[in-house]
């Protein structure tokens, strides 16, 4: 492979290594790469905790009339699992990826607002710790229970003082409010960075798809999160100052909360999913050895997903009793999302078509993502058909559907991203053999659990039940689903072991182990604090392709 021109070796710093010195460096850092890694590390820790909670729930549900976990504990488990996975795993993971990669990909030395960046991370972490502190502090003075137990979407009036005494719900409100502030500050930062920090020649048209999608996601965060924060504050006013926004007997409205929550909640699904698309859009071309097919269409599809996702929220509410006209509006708007999503899948497919596909671990995760996200999209179409949804909503079918989106879709692309960019961040490769074990175990476990749970839903099993009687046709399905979790757990163990081992003993990666085309591969692994010795100049959307193929550069065609 040709070496790339504008890399210079980093000069070694002389200071000797000390533990306190290193901790201090990480604590006070405003470097986008360190903050990005801290975001991702925190997300992975919360991921393991919330995953263990899911395993506990599946243990309880493996057999009918389970007695392993009492109802109060179970209700806390699914509330904490859902809240953690969305706000403490998905959101910080995407913030971490954006932080780490956006400046590198656009040839900048840091984010636009490094201190705001550090503020965002620490306030997020404080919010996350606060949520878990509720297990200790949520008891309150009167002993009303510990962690929140109202579900991650916390429908009123279950969250009002009459039904949720003590302080557990307040912990839920405050911690999400704080993580929301973190997300908004990081979104502002990404927007400012992409709009003002791009290097010479990096026009918006030439910006990598990853950066484009992160820009769209950040715009969506700015629109979608404030309604949630406002609703959280209204709920606090209800609970402490008697405001009664959501208290029906005092003229408030229980349905109003649902609207506020889902005006945030549905765009949130795409806020979580688009970063997955972003990773796939970088990885699939590199491992197919072809440029992204239809770049402009991909950008257009992402922007239109962003727009349409703002107008579909009430498809979570088909059973609350809206008029048939309102239901039909949300049926149509929801099905419309299928069009840009379809375009994206077709474009990834066309990128692979005619390529030379290399099945390294990142690409394996991306291929599984394509199959699984296809299914998730199709079950989404089923849920969008309002009458069909009246049967499926709040059943295990929905549980299976959104785990297909967030696990089969998002988590698989995030693992792909970790395998792909780990060499850049650490200078060492992750082990391919362990990676393949990780991949295949996760595929098998995922399908054992979530394929089967669709059928529990169509057999009438509601979600969020801590136990179920025998004789309703749910026994075998639940047992298989629980066995699948054991396999998924083994997969995660392979992954954790792979990361721990490779940090110390991984094969040295070099600057550009995948023979890739975006700017982050043009600097050393790991990159120096200032990212690039000389700020590169860009003439196409694949600057490193141009360098490696001076006879056939992209800018001739773009």
């Amino acid at each position, binding site marked *: 492979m040709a070496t790339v021109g504008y890399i210079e070796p980093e000069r070694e710093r002389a200071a000797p290594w000390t533990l306190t010195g290193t901790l201090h460096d990480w604590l006070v850092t405003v470097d986008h790469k360190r903050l990005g890694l801290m975001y991702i590390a925190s997300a992975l820790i919360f991921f393991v905790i919330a995953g263990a909670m899911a395993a506990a729930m599946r243990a309880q549900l493996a057999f009918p009339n389970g007695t392993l976990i009492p*109802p109060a504990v179970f*209700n806390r488990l699914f509330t904490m699992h859902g809240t953690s996975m969305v706000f403490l795993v998905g959101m910080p993971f995407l913030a971490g990826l954006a932080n780490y990669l956006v400046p590198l990909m656009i040839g900048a030395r840091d984010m636009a607002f490094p201190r705001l960046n550090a503020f965002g991370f620490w306030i997020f972490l404080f919010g996350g710790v606060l949520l878990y502190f509720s297990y200790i502090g949520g008891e309150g003075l009167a002993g009303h229970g510990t962690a929140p137990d109202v*579900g991650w979407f916390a*429908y*009123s009036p*279950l969250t009002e003082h009459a*039904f949720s005494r003590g302080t557990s719900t307040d912990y839920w409100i405050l911690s999400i409010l704080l993580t929301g502030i973190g997300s908004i500050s990081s979104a502002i930062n990404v927007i400012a960075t992409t709009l003002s920090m791009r290097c010479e020649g990096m026009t918006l048209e030439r910006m990598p798809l990853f950066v484009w999608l992160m820009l769209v996601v950040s715009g969506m965060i700015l629109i979608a999160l404030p309604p949630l924060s406002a609703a959280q504050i209204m709920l606090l006013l209800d609970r402490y100052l008697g405001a009664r926004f959501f208290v*029906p*007997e005092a003229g408030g409205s*229980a*349905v109003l909360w649902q609207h506020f929550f889902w005006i945030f909640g549905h765009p949130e699904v795409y806020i979580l999913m688009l970063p997955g698309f972003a990773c796939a859009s970088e990885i699939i071309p590199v491992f197919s*050895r072809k*440029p992204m097919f*239809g*770049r*402009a269409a991909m950008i257009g599809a992402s922007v239109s997903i962003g727009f349409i996702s703002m107008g579909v929220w009430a498809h979570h509410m088909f*059973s*609350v*009793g809206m*008029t*048939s006209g309102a*239901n039909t509006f949300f*049926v*149509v708007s929801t099905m419309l999302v*299928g*069009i840009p999503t*379809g*375009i994206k899948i*077709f*474009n990834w*497919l066309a990128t692979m*078509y*005619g*390529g*030379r*596909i*290399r099945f390294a671990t990142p690409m394996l995760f991306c291929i599984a993502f394509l*199959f699984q996200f*296809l299914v998730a999209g*199709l079950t989404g179409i*089923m849920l969008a*058909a309002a*009458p*069909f949804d*009246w*049967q499926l909503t*709040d*059943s295990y079918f929905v549980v299976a559907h959104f785990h297909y989106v967030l696990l089969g879709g998002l988590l698989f692309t995030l693992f792909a991203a970790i395998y792909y960019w780990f060499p850049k961040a650490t200078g060492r490769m992750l082990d391919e053999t362990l990676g393949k074990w990780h991949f295949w175990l996760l595929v098998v476990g995922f399908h054992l659990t979530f394929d089967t749970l669709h059928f529990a839903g*169509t*057999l*009438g099993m*509601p*979600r*969020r*039940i*801590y*136990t179920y*009687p025998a004789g*309703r*046709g749910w026994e075998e399905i639940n047992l298989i689903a629980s066995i699948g979790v054991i396999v998924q757990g083994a997969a995660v163990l392979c992954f954790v072991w792979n990361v721990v081992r490779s940090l110390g003993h991984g094969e040295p990666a070099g600057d550009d182990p995948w023979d890739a085309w975006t700017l982050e591969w043009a600097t050393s692994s790991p990159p120096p604090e200032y990212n690039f010795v000389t700020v590169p100049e860009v003439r196409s959307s694949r600057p490193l392709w141009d360098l490696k193929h001076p006879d056939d550069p992209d800018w001739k065609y773009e």
Partner: protein
Amino acid sequence: MTGDVLHAIGNIFRPASPPADSIYSLAMLVLAVCLAIFLSVAGVLTYTIIRFRRRPGEADREPPQVYGSNQIEIAWTVIPVLIVVVLSMATARVTSEIQNKKPPEGAVHATVIGHQWWWEIRYPALGIVTANELHVPLSTAAQPRPTFIRLESADVAHSFWVPLLAGKTDAIPNHPNSMWIEPRVEGTFLGNCAEFCGLQHANMLLRVVVQPADAFARWVDSERLTARHDHQGERVFMSLSCINCHAVSGTRAAGTFGPDLSHLMSRQTLGAGLFPNTPENLRRWIREPQAMKPGNLMPNMQLDDRQLDQVHGYLSSLR
């Protein structure tokens, strides 16, 4: 007693009532379209992976670089648009057909009120109050008799779901909803509360008992009678705090927080569908409801054995 056939498995693909029937037809259309999409896209994907895998010896050659094609983009935008149009129209038709049905002459009207963690069931026109088991007449082609249900909630949001009969509709405080069923199969249909409503959401079970017209009429007649009993335990029951929450028609027990007990012995289950209504279960429920359904809103009443015998005897006589 009819309702002997127990339809325990709520398979939405084996509907037994018109709203569930039309949902089933729509579902089959949607499933067929989705299956076709899945097979074609997954097929091309599989072909691509196999056909265009990197083979040994090609390692250093890059494939032809293709950047895109507007014609192809337009082609694969038009197909999903057409699919969306077809599915939206079919969905809109079924939505309106189910939601906008008007009650015909002879329809039964019931009000179902969700409570933490049981169902209050009222037939305002018939003067009946019961709990957890909704009795409805069988509908036949000759004599269609749908039941229209008004859904309310006394506390938090619940959802009424009996998969074989209809999709779910939420019971939300101060936001009355309506739905209807028109079962054409006899028997007892099981369902659940489908919206998380607190500690015992899992055990807020539901039954719909579908009876032929004459049996339903007999049930209505017997439920409309003032509660009959033949047990001296009445005095003990009335002297305890049971009557703060429970009602027995024709007595001074008029509580509204718990299920109406006027015709307790006509019901199949105790604890909102959780236990069969047997003498042993009833006795244990009176003694220690918190052990049988932890966290339910009926406290352990700390009755001594004599009081327990009296109350149990009295309740067992309420037919």
